[in-house]
């Protein structure tokens, strides 16, 4: 894991608890979440149809797609409820000096 793959997302207070922000980097788009026990990151686009999860509802450890209510576990990316059936990719997150970083492969 090389250091240069850690990309700065923003400050830790840029996300409210149990909420998310969208983060775009180069040609990719992500969602970065603040849950009660820390920060997490997933791909930004729902695996069911091409809609961004930035407008979805975060409940506990889950993100619900705003278009068709497919549900994913934010920590594991597991698709929990149809119409979503393909898992969402997740990314490592670290916090350093009140800044959030995600590791993009």
């Amino acid at each position, binding site marked *: 894991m090389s250091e240069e793959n850690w990309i700065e997302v923003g400050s830790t207070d840029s996300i409210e608890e149990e909420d998310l922000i969208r983060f775009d980097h180069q040609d990719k788009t992500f969602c970065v979440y603040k849950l009660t026990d820390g920060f997490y990151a997933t791909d930004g686009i729902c695996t069911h149809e091409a*809609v961004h999860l930035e*407008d979805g509802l975060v409940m506990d450890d889950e993100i619900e797609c*705003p278009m*068709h209510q497919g549900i994913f576990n934010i920590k594991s990316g597991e698709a929990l409820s*149809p*119409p979503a059936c393909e898992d969402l990719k997740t990314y490592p997150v670290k916090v350093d000096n009140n800044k959030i970083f995600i590791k993009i492969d």
Partner: protein
Amino acid sequence: MKNNIIILGGGQAGVYAAREIRQNDSKSNIKILGEENLLPYERPPLSKDFLLDKKKEEDLCFHSSDVLKNENIEFENISITKVDFENKKLFTKNDDVYIYDSLLISTGSENKKLTLDNNLKNDIYYLRNLEEAKKIKELVSNKNKITIIGGGFIGLEIASSLSQLQKKVIVIEIGNQLMGRIIPKQIADLVQNTHIEHGNEIILTKQIEKITKKNGDYEILLNDNSLIETDFIIAGIGSTPTVKLFENTNLKLDNGIVTNQFCETSIKDVYAAGDVSNFYHPLYERNMRLESYQHAQNHGICAGKNIAGVKTEYISIPWMWSDQFNLNLQLTGICNDYDEIIERGNDINNGVIYFFLKNKIIRGACGLGIAGKIGRDIRITSKLSEKNTIVDKQILSDQNQKLNKLIQK
């Protein structure tokens, strides 16, 4: 104890019930009897991504045969022609017999058909199942001017898809607005404008007097004496619950199979779920019949729990969606029983939602926006309405204020 559980109807409600039963009961035999020679599949893409060739047949199944096999759920493609509730038996036309201890009826609903001259019966196309979608997809490829009779969800979704395939589309609706059975006029008008902007013609408040076949094309005469020339006709004029099999039995029918909040019918050990069921909803204190993806799934799951002995009330808040062009329409709760309307947003790019309140409590909401823009607020509305939360109207009407603050934990 090992039981024979039969699920009559191989759609979404049936397969979700089967899997839920298995979650709670590892021993019983579970068999789904389906009339289509296909494992249960998703219908929403048929009028959209399937017509547009973005989704293929193999993308549609809910679960692979391996999933069902691993859970020891049998699927059989067979048509039942007679039911003997007293002796708990189902018969095929060849008099093959299926014996059950518990029966779930999830036969769904079927398209209403236009009353027409017999010579034209094979000229009007309907879309409910994969076979019909395949036929329409193949036949429209060399047609240019297509008329859709009925301005409901299915007709408008097909109109949107065909417009994207560069077809000239005309929609004829008998009512004075689109989707009039459940969608509020405010949202229906926004949808209508979008169709018109994309070149579709929308004709409201007109009835069809006569359809005449001319050299392979058609002339449709409307009740204002106007004439529409078209080369293909699709009708989407609503549906009725599939209950013919039960008409001369003791099963209580009234706009579908009447069930209580536990999916139980009037006959012991017989349950019904999904489109076919006219179920009691404890929150609204009345019976209702719903035709939607979320309902088929959740009602099936609820029936599965009850069949497996886990007594569970069905209290899911109705929710449905329709995708047309780049817009996503969503409705939650009920939007026709209210004393106050609150509007949130006025631009479909950011989403527009109308909330319907009664005695200060949200009964329902309907919204429209570019894909995804209204989903979170509609979902929060479901939660608020489920808990009968009295809400701050100023927050509801202000798009800059997040609604998740209103959810009480």
